[in-house]
């Protein structure tokens, strides 16, 4: 019998054009243990196909720090997919 990977709950937060595309500011998501930021993004890209086109211009963050796409998520993380920044 295959083992079921435990699920982790994370908060995903959206800003700017990504927030508009997804239609909300944040939501709680469950991911399997071992999932990376890229895995989580791919799930959104499957749900919102327009997102996939933005991938190369986005930077991921984990707990208020920029994070590589290969970074694994942990329970309780705050995750965001940040569009190019335009403050100033």
């Amino acid at each position, binding site marked *: 019998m295959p083992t079921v990977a435990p699920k982790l709950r994370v908060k995903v*937060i959206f*800003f*700017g*054009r990504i927030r508009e595309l997804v239609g909300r500011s944040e939501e709680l998501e469950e991911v399997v243990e071992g999932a990376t930021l890229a895995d989580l993004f791919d799930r959104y890209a499957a749900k919102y196909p327009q997102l996939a086109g933005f991938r190369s*211009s986005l*930077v991921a*963050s984990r707990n*208020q*720090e*920029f*994070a*590589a796409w*290969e*970074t*694994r998520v*942990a329970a309780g993380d705050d995750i*965001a997919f*940040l*569009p*190019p*920044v*335009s*403050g*100033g």
Partner: protein
Amino acid sequence: MIHLPTDDRFELLHRPIDVESVMQHVRADQDGAIVSFDGFVRNESHGRPTLHLEYEAYESMALTKMREIGVQVHESFAIHRLAMVHRLGRLEVGDTSVFIAVSAPHRAAAFDACRFAIDTLKKTVPIWKKEFFADGAVWADGEIPPAPPVRAEPAS
């Protein structure tokens, strides 16, 4: 670990920036110069008249990144105090969106630090600008922050 002077000031405001109070905040008798940067809303973008702008931020992360700029500024330049204030929400043409002031005993460090602070803010602080025109609105192109290397997982 670098000690960040507690009298630096980093703020995100949903109201107009009181430029004079920011200038006073960094000014002290030990200083001989203040250099400031006042970024305000231009009346056009790529030739199209701008009606107004809207700024939003990942506020907790933006403040963290602004404080990191503060640490870098104190590491790199012989300055006294730094203040960085960014406004969020709806801004009209002519409104100040960002104001930075740097005090130092001598002017060269203050000029260099102020330039570094605004340039780094524009590249690394998660704030976004939407531009509203007569015929629609667009998110400004912006800059992609440098991608970090993969970090070792902390033991859980």
